[in-house]
């Protein structure tokens, strides 16, 4: 009898996947902490497989060193919410694209000083002074997802989130 009551209790208290996504939206990207792992578009799926919560995560770049840290941060965050039975799976297809960055994430990036990705392949304005006279310094930057640009108006260098 007690066991039955316990399991019914478990069902009632099980977090919905929407709730889990909300919690994950509180997990910051380790390299760009102003955006969450949900903003980054790498949380591809949240499902209950029986009593196990499965979170599918896709890497941004295949060699991105943050990938394993992100998996650990997600696991820690969910365990702190009381979810003990969970599995994080790496899903590589479809391949991550910067199009999956959320609008909230794009706005936060710019406030933080990182120009958000654009289909044209370059930023439309300086994230500091909003001048449009900008030039590329290098196709690569401090993390795999960024390139280096410079503003010719305020002369400040800035990161641009690569569009791939």
């Amino acid at each position: 009898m007690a066991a039955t009551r316990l399991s019914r209790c478990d069902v009632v208290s099980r977090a919905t996947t929407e709730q889990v996504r909300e919690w994950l939206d509180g997990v910051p990207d380790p390299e760009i902490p102003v955006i969450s792992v949900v903003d980054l578009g790498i949380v591809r799926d949240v499902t209950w497989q029986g009593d196990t919560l499965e979170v599918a995560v896709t890497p941004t770049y295949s060699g991105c060193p943050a990938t394993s840290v992100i998996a650990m941060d997600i696991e820690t965050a969910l365990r702190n919410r009381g979810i003990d039975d969970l599995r994080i799976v790496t899903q590589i297809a479809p391949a991550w694209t910067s199009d999956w960055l959320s609008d909230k994430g794009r706005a936060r990036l710019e406030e933080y000083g990182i120009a958000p990705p654009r289909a044209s392949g370059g930023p439309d304005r300086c994230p500091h002074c909003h001048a449009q006279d900008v030039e590329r310094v290098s196709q690569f930057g401090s993390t795999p997802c960024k390139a280096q640009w410079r503003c010719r108006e305020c002369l400040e260098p800035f990161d641009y989130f690569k569009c791939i």
Partner: protein
Amino acid sequence: MTEKDALFEYLLRLGDNALILGHRVSEWCGVAPALEEDIALANTALDLMGQTQMWLGLAGEVEGAGRSADDLAFLRDAWDFRNLLLLERPNGDFGQTMMRQFLFDAFQTLALAGLEASTDQRIADIAAKALKEATYHLERSRVTVIALGDGTEESRARMQAALDAQWPYVGEMFAADAVDAAMVEAGIAPDPAALRPAWDGIVLPALHEATLSVPDSDFAHRGGKDGVRHTEHLGHMLTTMQWLQRAYPGATW
């Protein structure tokens, strides 16, 4: 050779190309001619290492002998590697490094585009991911080769020397053998020989724009992708790359 054996061999080629080039490029970390180039090279190496993990991980899975990507990378000796000879050659100067990158990136984008249509879904998925990165690498290596070729007298001379030294290693990329034939037959991979016209279409105009002369010899060194005869450079590279696992077997952190 069974289809499984051929698939394992083929995956080693994909993984070893990424691993060996990735390791070579990583040797520039901290010593590249400019900070921006240092960062670009390190990021390129990182992408290649990520691709290595996927290809060798799948190779180990296909082999079914319990070997992980790390086991394959760190516990094989030179004769078991299946990378192109071009990629194991020492970096030389920055110009040689970028020329090698360009010649390979052009090939790799075409090979990965073909693999995206593989009948093996696992391969198609990895290829789609890797192609995005390879395309980005090609964009940079192409522009750099053109800028250095069509640059100063010294940079042009160095780029011509780089092209002359590496040209005899180009042919191996397109030389098809029994492993390739088995992959084509199974619809798993494109025929490397068939990629040559498209490669010429990318490389030759860029070399022309770089004011470089294409060597007229078609002589091609062989022996990397089939492991028959690697250059003496590979073993030296592996002594550095594999040192930790050889000295402290099973070490983790």
